[in-house]
């Protein structure tokens, strides 16, 4: 009951913060669009994508065409040399620095650092590694720091408290932790779950925390970390590596010599083994795409409602103000759904990872027993 009230309070706070931040963010932009000197047409698509993708600076707000941003360090490895400079040198992508610039053209490289020559033309053959601390990397560091603090303080409270009832932050962590452990990990993996529990718990709390962190629309939240394909790729890769490394003889036999399948599907053309082998790779790829698509879609829809205000506001200012009421209501509604999605996607990712690991470590006898039961 107490937790429910706490949750409702958190929702309320989050909604208020969301509402407030929506106005905080976009009122300066409304003023800017009123200004006749900036005749740029509002481009909803690039605005939305710009908010969803990674960036070299953390844009906080724009007041009268003046950008307030946190400039993040750019780290480039090129020709055996490490280039380290502030992203402010790019002047919001308008200028190049030390032969590097942010690509402004539409295409695969948009928003990324490219090598340019003296005339500002892109050097496509240049090889360099971009290890810049981008917006998402900074958000990653902040969230990991906070998550570590939360979990470690919970662990400390357990140490202090002995095996009594949980206190403080552990009271919030414990029901979630037990829900994941007893609801997803133990039933999926079975008796060998102890070895994989730390990985799966870390996975779950990392995804959940960053999903929620991404819902906060201003610094230090707001980075679309779990909606970034690089992040979900690494998460899925971890699951893939853990699954593949813990696969037992039976797991590999199931892939290369699937029992219960007619022989002509295996010899001379190994049709089933190929399908099964593809399945090994599609599983983590689906994990990667599901999380990325769900979180990014939520962000895009929420941003779409906000952009609607400015699309209409460009044609008629009062229409813009008028539609803002509906937009904010829809945004809040979307916020609730995204809150739900944040939990569901974190759970689904963990559950599926647990199931894949469970498939890899399951003993032959267990399956026989299962078949006999069915």
């Amino acid at each position, binding site marked *: 009951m107490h937790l429910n009230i706490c949750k409702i309070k958190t929702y309320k706070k989050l909604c208020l913060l969301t509402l407030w931040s929506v106005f905080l963010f976009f009122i300066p932009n409304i003023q800017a669009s009123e200004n006749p000197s900036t005749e740029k047409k509002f481009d909803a698509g690039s605005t939305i*994508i710009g908010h*969803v*993708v*990674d960036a070299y600076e953390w844009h906080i707000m724009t007041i009268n065409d003046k950008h307030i941003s946190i400039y993040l360090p750019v*780290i480039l490895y090129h020709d055996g040399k490490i280039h380290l400079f502030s992203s402010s040198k790019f002047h919001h992508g308008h200028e190049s620095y030390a032969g590097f610039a942010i690509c402004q053209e539409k*295409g*695969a*490289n*948009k*928003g*990324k650092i490219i090598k340019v020559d003296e005339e500002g033309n892109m050097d496509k053959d240049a090889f360099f*590694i*971009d*290890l*810049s*601390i*981008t917006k*998402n*990397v900074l958000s*990653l*560091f902040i969230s*990991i720091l906070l*998550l*570590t603090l939360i*979990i*470690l303080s*919970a*662990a400390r409270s*357990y*140490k202090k*408290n*002995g*095996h*009594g009832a949980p206190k403080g932050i*552990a009271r919030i*962590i*414990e029901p979630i*932790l*037990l829900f994941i452990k007893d609801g997803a990990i133990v039933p999926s993996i079975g008796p060998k779950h102890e070895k994989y*529990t*730390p*990985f799966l*718990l*870390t996975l779950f*709390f*990392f995804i959940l925390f960053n999903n929620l962190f991404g819902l906060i629309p201003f610094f230090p939240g707001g980075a679309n970390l779990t909606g*970034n*394909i*690089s*992040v979900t*790729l*690494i*998460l899925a890769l*971890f699951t893939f590596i853990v699954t593949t490394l813990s696969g037992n003889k039976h797991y590999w036999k199931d892939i290369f010599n699937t029992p219960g399948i007619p022989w002509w599907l295996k010899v001379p053309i190994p049709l089933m083994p190929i399908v099964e082998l593809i399945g090994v790779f599609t599983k983590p790829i689906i994990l990667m795409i599901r999380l*990325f698509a769900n979180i*990014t879609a939520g962000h895009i829809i929420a941003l779409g409602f906000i952009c609607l205000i400015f699309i209409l506001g460009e044609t008629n200012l009062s229409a813009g103000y008028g539609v803002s009421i509906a937009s904010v209501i829809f945004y809040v509604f979307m916020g609730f759904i995204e809150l739900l999605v944040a939990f569901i996607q974190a759970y689904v990712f963990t559950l599926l990872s647990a199931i894949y690991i469970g498939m890899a470590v399951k003993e032959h006898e267990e399956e026989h027993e299962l078949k006999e039961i069915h």
Partner: protein
Amino acid sequence: MELVLPGIGLMFWMTLSFLILLFILGKFGWKPIMGMLNKREKSITDALQEAEKTREEMRLLKIDNELLLKQAKEERDAIVSEARKVSQKMYDSAKEKANFEAEHIIESAKEAIHYEKMKAIADIKNTIADLSVDIAEKVILQELKDKQAHSTYVNKLLDDIKLN
């Protein structure tokens, strides 16, 4: 398009950060938390088992007590009935003895009375004999004097005897 292209930089930092997170949380977070949760689970299970055991012990103890009480009652009853039997026996024997004694006393009393009676009869016999001899003597003496007087005298003597 830029949305679905992974960036090498973010992937690098993500891998590094996630590995560090995994290490820190695995070693200092989940391990003590899971350890404590398991410990708590164990302590709860132990407490429940202990309670069950105690309940069973209590049940057995109760049964024991009841058995003991029953035994004690039986013992008491046995002792009481035994005592009752003994007292009855004592009473009976005392009564018998008293009866016997009383009969004995009565018997001896009767004997004494009989003896006294015989003694008295013997005395009376002797006295009668003496008196008869006396009377006979006197009669004989009187007869010798007067016949008339003699019969009067005999009558008078007979009257005397009646008076006696």
